[in-house]
């Protein structure tokens, strides 16, 4: 954890889960902004250039897999690491998320220390 609170973009449509994750990430010292769908996620990535994106896969308007693929194809976004965050727990789902261009994968219910370690790993890799 650094004090320089690198910014995290949380993409989550479920209000309860969003509220919980935001508060826990903030308590862990991260600066967090949130959006509720895939389309808005791409828009926020362009504007904010977050250090890392936590993205739920089942999103309205544009789902997480599509958003990941589009981010990969966009040169201005392709360097931003995306950690997939989903209640789909099958191996197949994990493979699908990584194929769509996600850097890492976390299953709900979230093992919070593990999630923080994954975020840190992505941030370290970027530095």
């Amino acid at each position, binding site marked *: 954890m650094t004090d320089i609170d690198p910014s995290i973009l949380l993409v989550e*449509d*479920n209000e*309860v*889960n969003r509220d*919980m*994750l935001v*508060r*826990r990430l903030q*308590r862990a010292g991260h600066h967090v902004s949130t959006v509720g769908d895939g389309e808005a996620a791409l828009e926020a990535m362009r504007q904010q250039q977050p250090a890392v994106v936590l993205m739920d896969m*089942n*999103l*309205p308007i544009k*789902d997480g897999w599509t958003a990941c693929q589009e981010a990969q194809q966009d040169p201005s976004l392709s360097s931003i690491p995306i950690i997939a965050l989903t*209640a*789909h*727990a*099958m191996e197949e789902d994990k493979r699908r998320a990584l194929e769509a261009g996600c850097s890492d994968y976390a*299953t*709900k*219910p*979230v093992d*919070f220390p593990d999630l923080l370690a994954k975020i840190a790993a992505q941030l370290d890799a970027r530095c």
Partner: protein
Amino acid sequence: MRAADAVSQLRPRLSLRGRLYLFSGAILMLFAFNVGTSLWGSFARNESSIAYREAVTAAQLTAELEQNLQNKRQQVLVLATLRETTEEPLDAAALNQAYADLEIIAERLRQLGGFGGEDLEAYYRRLHDSVTALLGEWRQFYERYNETTQTPDIESAVSYNNTQQRLQELDQRQSFVAVQRANAIDATITLTDQITVLGFISSIAITLALVFAMIRSTNASLTRMKRGVERFGSGDLTYRIDEQRDSGEIGDLARTFNDMSTKLQTAIEEMNTARADADSANAAKSMFLANVSHELRTPLNAIIGYSEMLQDELGDGAQIDREQFHHDLATIIFSGKQLLTLINDILDLSKIETGKMQVSREIFSPAGLLVQVCDALSPLLLQNNNRLKLDIDKDSMRDMNSDRGKLQQIVTNLFSNACKFTKDGEITVSAHMSEESLIVSVADTGIGMTQAQQDRVFEAFTQAESNTGVKYGGTGLGLAIVREFCAMLGGRVALESQPDQGSNFRVTLPADPTSVPAGA
């Protein structure tokens, strides 16, 4: 195709056995024809040669007769000369010998009469007359030979010359007839030989043609059979042999094969359908499992996440925001209840599917139940800012005999669906009773459904769209349970809906399935 059909219609439909009989019959007829021709030829030849032989015999007789006459005349002339010179009478033996000679000549003449037929009749008649006359004169000569001293008249010269003349004519005629008969024999032999050769050659040709036709038609039938077996065997299950093309055994075989093909096709199709059903059932179960896993994890995420967070906050020892703390606990409780509902739904559906779901009937007031359910579920209205309109026709309502718990769950599921898919709208729960039934409808002003969505929305594990669960939550079990419960209670559920125009679920349940009330 039409022309080929017409040709096959014209083709005589004969069984293999029939073809063999026809074929054998044709060959026997040809054989009989050949034998007949040969018999007729030899008969005709025989007739001709008999006639020829007769002609030859007649010519011989004529020559002998001529010789006899000449000898006799010689004798008569010698006797006449002797009589003049010696005047010695003839003894009885010589006379008898002479008469016998005359008799022999007469006999010869008669024999000659038996030959020759009509052609020679006239010639023979003339010869007969003149020979008879001559013999008469010679007889007189012998009779008078001893009586008188005077030399008896031998004959009139005319008689003998006449006879000679007639003999020559007959002889010539006989030669002519013999030549004619010889020619006729030649012609007959030539003709019968030609007919025999022709018959033989045509028999061979016709037999070959028959054999060829037989082989061809049988081969064609068998080829059709073979092609059918090959096509069917290679997976063309709809292929059938044209059983109209053959009759008899091969036709029977084709029909039997087609029957077998139909049964096999049905069996294979049933098997494929069963396999497809099993596959899709399996796929549905896997899908369901994935959905259930997803849905269980979503509330669990909140429960674990909030609990851990509250634990952390307590551990910090910092000032605790009681209101926030209370709200977080409420979230944990709500998620826990959501989880419980989900598990109950899954268990219910599993019970229904395995036939273990029981109906427990009791007498209760449906109006009271509806009011109770709507009260209990009113917090759901707040989620999407909806209003409730409760429209119960109290005059028609009375107690009913049904499963209270199941009716409660039916209404609960419909109500929570309506709340889930409607935003800033109105949920109308209305109820009335007819003589026999309770009719409850739950209508909303929400997103509604297309016809295709309506068609599958009652299926277990499915929702209007595959990502409906994403947007609105749920596993697609609520309506499946509603439909099953309605069926178990002897009623039904109907749906009217249009996209963006809201949905109206209408449940009809028998008020008392054990007896029809005798008037309200």
